[in-house]
């Protein structure tokens, strides 16, 4: 059912925009808009949504915390910093950005995890605080780096940092598609172990989970997902919080459902949010990250209070 919904949303998003297009009767100009601009953007949005939602769902189970989210943990910022470093020092070659973003995401994940882990284990507050610290620290480095950019590139970067799909290209889409498919498959394969980890790390160990290996897998693949998503579209926030939460509301907590369904629901969510971003004040555009944050921040507060 979700697949059908995704298909519907994709067609809808392709038709709607500053220039309304019926995808069945096209003029040459409309054809150019559809294939060169709108299509890579919509497809990239779908992949980015899948990446972020799957990363969020698995990090939440692993860290036993429904508030864990790549953006809030500073993982997205790690990836953003990696992307910027690649851009400033290595030029904008195709593979360097996602690779550096992957490395940045991985390092940020590791840093947050080490900081959040106390003698008495990990609690919600500690994890959120560690995320805030890593996020602000990385933000300040990003700000320092932006000072070396000229004004025109700066505006582009500011948009990109907020999460922006307007620079979508086919190569970017292909790379995120590969990451989304690989990441979803591998993380789904760990879902049964994650069901045990979600209840307690010690329980999982007692009941036969090789927790070190699962942790490494989840950190590695969620960094890959977040890294490629951020390299292509900047830090679209809160997707990893909102989507798994909605999926859990309808299916329960079994990660064998939550992880793969988050991929589909995440794709739908970001494509919809980006359609709003494109059309709300057309012909001008909003960064999609602004839309997702508008929905996500209140939800975060609600979940925190309920905890």
């Amino acid at each position: 059912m979700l697949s059908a919904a995704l298909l519907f949303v994709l067609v809808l998003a392709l038709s709607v925009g500053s220039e309304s297009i019926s995808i069945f009767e096209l003029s040459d100009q409309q054809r150019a808009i559809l294939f060169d601009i709108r299509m890579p953007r919509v497809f990239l949005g779908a992949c980015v949504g899948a990446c972020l939602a799957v990363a969020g769902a698995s990090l939440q189970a692993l860290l036993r915390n429904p508030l864990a989210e790549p953006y809030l943990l500073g993982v997205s910022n790690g990836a953003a910093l990696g992307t910027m470093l690649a851009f400033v020092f290595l030029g904008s070659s195709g593979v360097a950005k996602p690779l550096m973003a992957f490395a940045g995401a991985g390092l940020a994940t590791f840093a947050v995890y080490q900081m959040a882990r106390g003698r008495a284990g990990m609690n919600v507050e500690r994890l959120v605080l560690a995320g805030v610290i890593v996020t602000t620290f990385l933000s300040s480095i990003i700000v320092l780096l932006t000072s070396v950019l000229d004004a025109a590139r700066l505006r582009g970067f500011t948009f990109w940092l907020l999460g922006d799909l307007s620079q979508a290209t086919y190569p970017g889409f292909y790379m995120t598609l590969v990451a989304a498919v690989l990441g979803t498959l591998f993380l789904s394969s760990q879902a049964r172990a994650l069901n045990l980890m979600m209840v307690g790390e010690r329980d999982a160990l007692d009941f036969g989970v090789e927790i070190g290996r699962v942790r490494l897998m989840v950190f590695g693949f969620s960094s890959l997902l977040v890294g490629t998503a951020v390299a292509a579209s900047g830090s679209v926030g809160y997707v990893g919080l909102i989507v798994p939460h909605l999926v859990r509301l309808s299916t329960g907590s079994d990660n064998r459902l939550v992880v793969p369904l988050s991929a589909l629901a995440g794709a739908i969510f970001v494509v919809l949010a980006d359609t709003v971003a494109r059309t709300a004040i057309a012909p001008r555009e909003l960064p999609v990250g602004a839309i997702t944050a508008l929905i996500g921040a209140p939800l975060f507060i609600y979940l925190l209070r309920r905890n």
Partner: protein
Amino acid sequence: MLEVHNISVAYGSRLVIQSVSFALRDGQIVVLLGPNGAGKTTLIRALNSSVPLASGEVTLEDNRLQELSRREIARSIAVVAQENETKFPVTVLEFVLAGRFVHGRAFGWETDSDVEAARRALSQCDLAEFSERLMNELSGGERQRAVLARAIATDARVLLLDEPTANLDLAHQALMFRLIRERCVGHGCSAVVITHDLNLAAEFADEILMLKDGKVFASGPPAEVLNQRNIDEVYNVQVLLDENPASGKVRVTTVY
């Protein structure tokens, strides 16, 4: 079944378990007694290799635990730890099914026989009607029984239980120990149980291991271990001992 050879466990430079040895034979219940901080929980965690040993070794049917994988250990040894809470909406049945993790592949779905084993364990623990309820809606005692049900659902031959009756009312304390004994006598399982209730220990233990400061202070059958001198030395309380008229076992009454 499970043999402990002269093990020590250290947290940093502090030895919390020192030179403990004992054997757990098929069908046997060994109860660990001792005051808070005596090392009971650490000892039980060493028995499934979830804390590293400073020295000595634990063998499971003549295999050294360190040489077995987590899955191999979990297939034979199940744990009932002290209470845990999850922030996710997990149903009781899903929680108990986690005990079947070691039987399937690491991924994929539970089979019908897994679900059957989980339901059987639930009804043994008096939780049959609770299977679709959420874990975080249960009372402490109900959750504690769900934790036992999960351990039973594993079909493991050794049960390690850390204060399984801590949150239970009188009826369910008795149910818990009856279940443990039934599994040991009827199914050839064996169990190591931590409790603070000396009378439950007297009633159900085949052997008692009394710990003090990480060392075995006394060990043997309840009638031998539960004497005035041992209890005074280990717990520093005065007790009266007589015979329980219902079972003929030792009865311990604290003098306040």
